[in-house]
C-alpha cells in the first residue's frame, strides 16, 4: 500500500483538525487488536464472516492479533475501506455508529502503515521496465544519432501512480512489437545511409594493410554496439549468435552489409534493449546489490531519461561507480548537465500535471487569447523553473515561493510583465509575489480549471495532492455539482455557491480543506491571468482553514504553504522516489522517505540532497528476489 493511498483514507478523519497523518511513531498499546478491534468484529461482522460458511471466504474470526493483521495487509485495506465507506455491514444489518466506524478504520490505517526501520530493510522489487516512448526515442538518439520521430506514434504508455514509467503498467502488445520491428529496420537503414552515423555506431576501422582483419573488426564493432545498446557487457555466445545473422545473409547470396544490418536490428528488438533487465539474487539469497552497470542504467534513466553516457559507462566498466564519492560526484555532474531538462520534461511535467496542457481546451469565446503559442509558453515556464532549481541546486522551498520565473514575450504579456520582447525565454525577477513558485504557474492554474471557469475545488485538490501529499478521497457519485444555471451564476459569486455545497456534512469534511486553498487563487482566471473581478463580482480571495488559519490571496497562501514545508518535503520525496524506481511505494519504503525528509531539513532543502538521498537509498541500489520479503 502506498502512502498517498493511505493519506486518501485518512483524509476524512484528520481533516477537521488538519493534522499531519500520524506515522508509526505513535505506538498504540500492546496488542490493541484484541482490545479494540475484535469486539467490533464480533458485534458487527462475525455473523457473516466467520466459521465454515464465511461469506466471500473472508474469515475474520481467524485474526487474533496485530501480527495476524499485518500478514494479510490486502484483506485489511479492504476491510477498512468497506467499513469507512458504509459499504459494510450491509443495509438491513446492525450498523455501527460513526465513531465506531472511524475507530476501526483509523486503527487499520495506522497499523498498516507501521514499519520497523531499525532492522534490515526491504528494498522492494522493480518489475522489468520496458522503455517508454520518450526513453526509447532518447536512447535511440544517443545510441545511433538517429532522431526517430515515429516513436511518438507508438501506442500510449499507460500511467500508474501518476507517471508513465512504471514497470508493472508498461505492457508489450503485438501492435507495439510490430512497431519496434519496423523502427529497428528504419533506424538501421538511416544509420547505414549516413557515413557519420555509421562511424558513431561502428567506430573501429580495419588497418588499411590488413584486409584479413575485417572479421575481427566486425566482431569488435558489433560488440561495441551491443554492449551499449544492452547497457552491459555482452558474452561471446551472444556475440556469436548475432554474427550468425551475418552468416545467414551470406548463405542467401546477400552482401555482408545486409547481414550486419540484420544483426543490428536484432540488437534493437532484443529484450535486452527494450527492457531494462536486472538480474535477480542468486537462489537462497534474498537481496542483492545492483552492479555498476545496473546502477548506471537506473541513474541515467532517472535523471536523463536515456542510456548511460560514456563517463558513466567507463566508471561502470572500471567498477568504480558504486564508490560513494564517485557516485555522488556523478549525480552532481548529471544535475548540472543540460540533459537534466529530461527530468523536468518527464518528472516535473507529470508531477505538476502541466503535461495535460496538451489537451487543455479553455473556452475560446471567454479566452480568445489562449492559443498554442501560449500553451507552449506555459509549459516551458514550468520546465525551465524546475530545471533551474535542479541545475543550480537551489532549495526545494523555491517550488513554494520564488522571486523569479521564466517568460518570453507572449507569457510576459499574459502576466502583465513589461519590457520582455521576443520568443526566447529569460529569467525575470518578480517583485510583488503574484507569481513565483509552482502554485501560481499559469500552466498549473490552467490544467486545474474547467474549460469555462476556474475551479477552486480542483486547484485546492491539486495543492493537497501535489504539494502537501494528502489527496482527498473522491466525492460520492451523487454529491451533486455546482449549478451552472446562468441565473444562479449571476445570483452569487462562485465562493457563495461553494459554501452552499459545503453545507452538506458528508462533503464538508474534505471541502473544508480543499476549497480554501483554491479560493485564495481566485485572482487567477481559468488560463491563469490576473483578474480583479469575476463576472460582475469583485474577486474575494480570502480563505479560512478548518484550524482557523486565515489568509487572503496568493502571497499569503504561499506563506501558509511554507509553514507546511515538512509535508511538502515528504510529498515531493514520495513522488520523485516513485518516478526514480518505476514502481508504487510500499509501506516499507517509509524508512527511506523518512531518511530523505530528515536530510532535507538538515541540509537546507537543497535539490541535490533529495536526489542523492534517492540515489543512495536501498530501494535504488538493491533488489529483492522473487517473492520473499526479509
Amino acid at each position, binding site marked *: 500500500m502506498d502512502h498517498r493511498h493511505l493519506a486518501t483514507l485518512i483524509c476524512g478523519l484528520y481533516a477537521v483538525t488538519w493534522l499531519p497523518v500520524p506515522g508509526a511513531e505513535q505506538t498504540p498499546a500492546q496488542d490493541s487488536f484484541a482490545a479494540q478491534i475484535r469486539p467490533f468484529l464480533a458485534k458487527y461482522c462475525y455473523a457473516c464472516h466467520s466459521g465454515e460458511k464465511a461469506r466471500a471466504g473472508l474469515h475474520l474470526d481467524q485474526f487474533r492479533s496485530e501480527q495476524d493483521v499485518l500478514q494479510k495487509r490486502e484483506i485489511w485495506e*479492504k476491510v477498512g*475501506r468497506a467499513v469507512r*465507506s458504509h*459499504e459494510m455491514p450491509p443495509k438491513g444489518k446492525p450498523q455501527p455508529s460513526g465513531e465506531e466506524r472511524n475507530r476501526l478504520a483509523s486503527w487499520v490505517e495506522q497499523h498498516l502503515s507501521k514499519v520497523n526501520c531499525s532492522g534490515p530493510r526491504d528494498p522492494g522489487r522493480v*518489475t*522489468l521496465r520496458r522503455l517508454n516512448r520518450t526513453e526509447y526515442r532518447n536512447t535511440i538518439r544517443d545510441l545511433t544519432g538517429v532522431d526517430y520521430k515515429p516513436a511518438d*506514434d507508438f501506442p*500510449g*504508455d*499507460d*500511467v*500508474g*501512480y*501518476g507517471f*508513465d514509467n512504471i514497470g*508493472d*503498467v508498461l*505492457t508489450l*502488445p*503485438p*501492435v*507495439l*512489437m*510490430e512497431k519496434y*520491428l519496423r523502427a529497428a529496420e528504419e533506424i538501421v537503414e538511416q544509420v547505414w545511409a549516413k557515413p557519420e552515423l555509421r562511424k558513431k555506431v561502428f567506430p573501429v576501422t580495419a588497418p588499411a594493410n590488413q584486409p584479413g582483419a575485417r572479421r575481427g573488426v566486425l566482431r569488435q564493432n558489433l560488440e561495441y554496439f551491443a554492449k551499449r545498446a544492452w547497457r552491459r557487457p555482452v558474452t561471446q555466445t551472444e556475440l556469436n*549468435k*548475432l554474427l550468425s545473422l551475418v552468416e*545467414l*545473409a551470406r548463405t*542467401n547470396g546477400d552482401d555482408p552489409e545486409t547481414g550486419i544490418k540484420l544483426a543490428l536490428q*536484432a540488437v534493437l*528488438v*532484443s*529484450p535486452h534493449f527494450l*527492457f531494462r533487465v536486472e*538480474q535477480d539474487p542468486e537462489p537462497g539469497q534474498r537481496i542483492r546489490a545492483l552492479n555498476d552497470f545496473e546502477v548506471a542504467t537506473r541513474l541515467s534513466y532517472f535523471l536523463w531519461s536515456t542510456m548511460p553516457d560514456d563517463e558513466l559507462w567507463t566508471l561502470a566498466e572500471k567498477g568504480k561507480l558504486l564508490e560513494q564519492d564517485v557516485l555522488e560526484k556523478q549525480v552532481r555532474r548529471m544535475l548540472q548537465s543540460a540533459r537534466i531538462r529530461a527530468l523536468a520534461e518527464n518528472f516535473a*511535467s*507529470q508531477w505538476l500535471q502541466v*503535461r495535460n496542457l496538451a*489537451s487543455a*481546451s479553455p*473556452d475560446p469565446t*471567454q479566452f480568445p487569447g489562449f492559443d498554442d503559442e501560449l500553451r507552449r509558453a506555459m509549459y516551458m515556464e514550468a520546465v525551465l523553473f524546475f530545471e533551474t532549481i535542479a541545475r543550480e541546486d537551489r532549495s526545494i522551498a523555491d517550488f513554494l515561493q520564488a522571486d523569479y520565473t521564466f517568460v518570453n514575450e507572449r507569457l510576459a504579456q499574459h502576466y502583465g510583465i513589461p519590457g520582455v520582447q521576443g520568443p526566447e525565454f529569460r529569467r525575470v525577477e518578480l517583485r510583488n509575489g503574484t507569481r513565483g513558485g509552482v502554485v501560481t504557474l499559469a500552466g498549473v492554474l490552467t490544467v486545474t480549471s474547467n*474549460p*469555462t471557469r476556474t475551479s477552486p475545488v480542483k486547484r485546492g485538490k491539486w495543492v493537497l*495532492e501535489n504539494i502537501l501529499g494528502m*489527496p482527498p478521497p*473522491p466525492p460520492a*457519485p*451523487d454529491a*451533486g*455539482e*455546482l*449549478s*451552472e444555471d*446562468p441565473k444562479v451564476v449571476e445570483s452569487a459569486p462562485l465562493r457563495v455557491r461553494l459554501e452552499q455545497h459545503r453545507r452538506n456534512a458528508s462533503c464538508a469534511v474534505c471541502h473544508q480543506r480543499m476549497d480554501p486553498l483554491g479560493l485564495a487563487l481566485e485572482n487567477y482566471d481559468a488560463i491563469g491571468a490576473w483578474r480583479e473581478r469575476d463576472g460582475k463580482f469583485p474577486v474575494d480571495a480570502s480563505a479560512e482553514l478548518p484550524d482557523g488559519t486565515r489568509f487572503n490571496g496568493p502571497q499569503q497562501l504561499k506563506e501558509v504553504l511554507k509553514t507546511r514545508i515538512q509535508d511538502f518535503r515528504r510529498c515531493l520525496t514520495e513522488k520523485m522516489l516513485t518516478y526514480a524506481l518505476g*514502481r*508504487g511505494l510500499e509501506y516499507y519504503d517509509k524508512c527511506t522517505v523518512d531518511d530523505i525528509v530528515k536530510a532535507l531539513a538538515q541540509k537546507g532543502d537543497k535539490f541535490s540532497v533529495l536526489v542523492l538521498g534517492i540515489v543512495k537509498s536501498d530501494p535504488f541500489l538493491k533488489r529483492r528476489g*522473487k*517473492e520473499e520479503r526479509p
Partner: protein
Amino acid sequence: MRLPPTAISRRRFLRGVGTAIALPWLEAMAPGPIASANAAARPPLRMAFFYVPNGIHMQDWIPAVEGTQFELPYILRPLEPFQKDLLVLSGLTLDKARPHGDGPGDHARAMASFLTGVQAKKTAGADIRCGISVDQVAAQKVGQLTRFPSLELGCEGSRQAGNCDSGYSCAYSSNISWRSETTPLPKEINPRAVFERLFGHGTPSEREVSRLKRDHYKKSILDLVAEDAKSLQGSLGGPDRRKLEEYLTSIREIERRLQEADRKPIQTPAGSISAPTGIPAQFGEHIRLMTDMLVLAFQADLTRISTFVIANEGSNRTYREIQIPEGHHDLSHHGGNKEKHEKIKRINRFHIEQFAYFLGKLKSVREGDTTLLDQCMIVYGSGIGDGNRHNHDNLPILLVGQACGKLRTGKHLRYPKETPLTNLYLSMLDLFGVPTEKLGDSTGKLQYLSL
C-alpha cells in the same frame, strides 16, 4: 474495382483443393455478383464493440415501448435508417463495475469490466489485474483465420499525467480489450498508423518486392530474440516473467502473421483508398476516419473482431464542433441541471451520429447478395448508465447488424433487472462459433435475440 488476376487464380486454385474456408472474403471487390453461392464461401461473421464514456442521458435513449413498434428517442434518432438492423437492449447490468468494497472509481471499473465482466483489482500500478475480454476470447479461438486476430481502435490516447480514477491505474480507464487478466491491449488512435498496419507502407510494388526474403530474415531475427527472452525468463521471477511472456506472445503473433502473409498476399480493397495523413483536428472527422479503417479491415477480411473506444472513460474533452465548451465528464455530473442534461444529450447524439456514419459505410459495401452490415454484430454502449449517479444497471446497450441472418433485429427488448451484460456476450460468442461456458459474471445466454 477489379480483383487482381493473380488473386482470382489463387482463389480458384484454393477452391480446387478444398480449402476455401481460409479465403479472405473478396467477393465485395469482385466485378459482378458471384454466381454460385457456395456454402463454404459464405461471407464470415464479424463482431465489434464500441464504447462511449460517462454514461448516457437515459431519458432520451430508452424507447418508450418494447417490441418492434418503437420510436427512436432523440439520442438514437440518427440511427433511423438502421432501425430494422438494430436491437435496443434495456435492463442489462455490469455488476463488477460496482464497488464491492473497493470504494470510489466507477469510471475505471466500468471500462475495465465492460467486456470482461470482471472487477478490476484496485491498484494504481502494481499488479494490474482484470479478466480476458469477450473480443479476445473470440480472437484466441478464431483469430488465426485472419491476418490480425483483432484490432483495437480508439480516438483518445492514454492520459498524460495525474491519477485517472481514485487509485486505479490509467490502464483501466483507457483500455477495453484484455488479452489476459494481466495484459490490457492498447488501442491505435492514429488512422495513418492503422492503415499502414493493415496494408503495409511504401508503394504497393515496394511492399511486395523481395518480401519473401525479408520475411525470412525477419523470422530469423525473431527466433534469435525469442531465445534471449526465454533464457531471461529462466533467470527472472514473478512479474518479470509475465512481462517476458508478453514479449514472447507478441513475437509468436508476428511470426504467425508472417506465415500468413506467405499464404495470402495483402490486397488493398479499393484502388481509390490512399493512406490517411494523420489525426484530423476535428473530433468527428477523427472518429469517422477511424471507422473507415475498420470498414476496410472488415471488407478485406484482415480481421473479424474489433473494439473501438470513442473516448476514454472519464474523458473530459470538450465538443466545440457542436458548441459545447465544457468538459464531458464535468457535464456528466449534472446534478439534475437541465442545461447540462441538454448538453450531455447532444454529446451522446454526436457520438451516435458518427456511429451512424460507420453503419452507413458498412451497409454500402456489398457482400454476395447482402451487405457487410448484415454480416456484423456490433455492440455500442457505456459501462455507466447515468453519469451523475454512476449506476451500472439498466445500461445503454445497442446490438446492431443481423449477424449473417442469425439475429432478429428491429426491436427494443427489456430484460429483467440485474441481467448480466456478459450474458449478451455469451450469446454473441455462440453465434460466432466460439461457444463459451462463462465469461466473467455471466449466468447464461441472453434470450430473445434470435426469436
